[in-house]
């Protein structure tokens, strides 16, 4: 495909990742959030595909496939099943309410673009120019971890951090050698699985918990 269209698609995909992140911050219902995660995973995969096509990098395409399978299909499905039992459960009263979160995310995005500029400039490629988006996604994910009470939301936050970093990785270095990429995605998957198992157990042990009820352990 031509350079311009390649870049616009790339931008679009990367942008979607970020938009999904902001949306997740906005949404309260878990189902909607999970679908957003799926979309984010898909668009991350798209980024990988586009880059792979552009650079004629088979390894990258394979990585893209892995990413799509893991992050756009498997994990959302698992999440959906896990949170199926407590259907319709919502992040009713987040630690930071939605408007404030959105403002914060705006601030984080600005921060990402300020701090990411150096890296972007260093990478030099047009794809590299999009690195700040990855960093922003990561930061927002982190923010979700800090600001949301429900276990599922923390899993999602973690995923967002991962996606953001993966995005950065794709944009900077067109991904890692395939094996490592595989290992990374596998780790992410396992991590999410473990977290979901844990959240199941939490629910079994003490019913429907908010995480900040878990303050039994401290000095």
């Amino acid at each position, binding site marked *: 495909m031509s350079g311009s269209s390649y870049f616009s698609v790339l931008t679009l995909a990367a942008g979607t990742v970020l938009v999904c992140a902001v949306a997740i911050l906005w949404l309260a219902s878990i189902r909607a959030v999970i679908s957003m995660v799926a979309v984010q995973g898909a668009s991350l995969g798209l980024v990988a595909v586009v880059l792979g096509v552009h650079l004629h990098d088979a390894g990258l395409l394979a990585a893209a496939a892995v990413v799509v399978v893991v992050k756009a299909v498997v994990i959302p499905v698992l999440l959906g099943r896990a949170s199926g039992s407590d259907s319709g459960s919502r992040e009713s009263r987040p630690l930071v309410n939605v408007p404030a979160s959105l403002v914060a995310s705006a601030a984080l995005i600005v921060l990402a673009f300020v701090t990411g500029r150096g*890296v972007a400039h260093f990478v030099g490629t047009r794809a590299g120019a999009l690195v700040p988006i990855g960093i922003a996604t990561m930061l927002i994910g982190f923010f979700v*971890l800090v600001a949301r009470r429900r276990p599922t939301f923390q899993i999602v936050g*973690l995923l967002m*951090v991962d996606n953001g*970093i993966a995005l950065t990785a794709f944009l900077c270095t067109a991904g*890692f050698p395939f094996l490592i990429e595989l290992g990374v995605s596998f780790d992410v998957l*396992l991590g999410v699985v473990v977290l979901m198992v844990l959240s199941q*157990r*939490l629910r079994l042990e003490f019913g429907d918990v908010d995480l900040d009820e878990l303050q039994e352990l401290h000095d």
Partner: protein
Amino acid sequence: MLLMTILVLPLLGGTAVALGRGRTWSAWAAVASNGGALALGIIAAVRVLREGPLSGARGTLRADALSVFMVIVIGAISLLASWLGVRTPARAPEDGHRNPERSAVYGVLVQAFVGFMILAVLAANVGVLWVAVEATTIVTAFLVGFRRTRGSLEASWKYIVICSVGIALAFLGTVFVYLAALHAGGHSAHALDWTSLMAHARHFDPSLMRLAFGLLVLGYGTKVGLAPMHTWLPDAHSQAPAPVSALMSGVLLTVAFYAILRFKAVTDVALGPGFARTLLVIVGLLSLALAASLLIAQRDYKRMLAYSSIEHMGLIALGAAAGIRLAIAAVLLHILGHGLAKSVLFLTSGEILTAEGTSRIDGVRSLVARRPALGGLFGVGLVALLGLPPFSLFTSELVMVRAEFEVGLGWAAVLAMVAMVVVFIAVVGHARHMLLGPSGPPRPAGSSGVTAPPPRWVAAPLIGGLVVCGFIGVFAWPLSGLLAAAARVVAT
């Protein structure tokens, strides 16, 4: 080949456990496998010293002096931990009787844990290193939550969330290093190998490396338990079964620190020693101050041990900050000494917990008089941990202070010394209440009737660990060569 064997042995032990459905003999098989790993590690060390770095599995594994030293540390402590772990699953409060598949799961996970740690230190490639470290997080998450109590679940949740985030940051850092490497003309396949990183580090982009190392310290620092991302550590260490705490505190932290050491070497080549030094001094002092302040009013002896781990990681960070060979050698000696002492202490505290039924400091009284074996072990372990002779922590701390003075970090050494005195005061205060005092009647409340001293085969490895810790503190010859070589790997 040798390296492969070292890597596979613990996993073999794990499979044995799986096949043996966690029966006692299989647990012993696991112990044996870890022992074998230790033995092979020593052999590897000898070979490395004689013929230089080994490599295996078509270059994905590489062992220089530093790696084999870490292998020895891992082997030794996993031997201790799995030995004491033979009867741990039966100790899980909610099922007093031995529960086969749970003990099987336990054994397998522990062995996998050990395996991944060995992989981490033997990996030739920083990507593989990262994968291995993250894998340890996942494996241990179950182990931390193994007892399925509310506390343990909470702890494991915090543990995995915080550590995953941290490790993710480390990954970002790795990405940037990779980027720098590619731009410095490394070949993409091997650009992330330690050797090529060290080779090309001269040409890395400074600003990028600065950011990368910052992220790496923050990320791997999370697993090391360095402030400010240490927060998972006290919870996890206090909730996990004793052998797991021993493994985590004794080796996992230092395996993560191994990564920082490696990257520090790269950064030093790229940026000169100043930058990494500043960063490590900051986190080191931060961790020390934090550990000291939180030990003062500590009420739980397992958390006390956990915070002392944070303290020692801070010390190690300071030592690494000094960076000269002497300092690195001391850091490594400290890693070994702390590993031994701390794992013995955690294992002992596990015994104390099962005997006394509480992990609260004010719940345990006059231990020396009532349970001489446990009290004695705990006391001696604390003596070792507080850096008193003849234990090796004394020597290593002293040498670290020396090195810090030599590179002009004297002021940091002074601050560290102040923190250590505070720690000493706090720990001595707590220990006094736990250990000393008249032997009243053994308190029926809570204590699960286990008043018999631990059987010999339990006490033996603990005593052995302390003896070794004291031995390497006095006698130089077994280690000096290896330490020097290992220091040469990462110190200019």
